[in-house]
């Protein structure tokens, strides 16, 4: 089973600051997905990146897939309290399965 390492595991910043979350592996993934999860709920898909070097933007969130398709990053600009949550990256390891990172718990303080 391929592994995905997310960093940092916990991040607490003030409203308006910028942040980056990383998702790294030694393995190549055919695609990578980012999810956001609220307490007591299931994760919800934010974006899927497929092509090496691909950059996708979702309002203040910017997602990048590494050129070698082994890593990805999520950058949030001017963080808002509503961005608080658990962010999970997940890689397609084939055989109809995803492998998930351990998550980044993000807290945005007003």
């Amino acid at each position, binding site marked *: 089973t391929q592994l995905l390492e997310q960093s940092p595991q916990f991040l607490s910043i003030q409203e308006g600051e910028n942040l980056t979350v990383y998702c790294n592996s030694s393995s190549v993934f055919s695609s990578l*997905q980012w999810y956001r999860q609220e307490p007591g709920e*299931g*994760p919800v898909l934010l974006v899927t990146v497929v092509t090496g070097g691909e950059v996708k933007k979702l309002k203040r969130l910017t997602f990048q897939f590494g050129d070698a398709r082994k890593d990805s990053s999520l950058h949030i600009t001017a963080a808002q309290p509503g961005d608080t949550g658990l962010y999970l990256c*997940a890689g397609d390891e084939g055989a109809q399965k995803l492998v998930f*990172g351990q998550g980044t718990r993000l807290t945005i303080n007003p």
Partner: protein
Amino acid sequence: SQTIHQWPATLVQPVGSPLSLECTVEGTSNPNLYWYRQAAGRGLQLLFYSVGIGQISSEVPQNLSASRPQDRQFILSSKKLLLSDSGFYLCAWGGGGNQPQHFGDGTRLSIL
């Protein structure tokens, strides 16, 4: 539109008791179905997945089993629960590959 139902939302069970968690999907046919367990605030551990009726793949040897008696029904079971079975259990459906997975709201299982 597709929806996924998972119940119950919370469950408190004594050690040694049986377990049955049910998940049903509406609005799609022949989905891939998944059971995950999540430790508090952490990532998801894949327990079982199914690509069709009666087809179950187990990812982690453990005290749990899964069944898919109907196309859009996925059941997680145990004959005798252990303390270590406590956790947040999530059901999901997806198309496989780079298709997204869609999650239920989870079941919080506490073993006493």
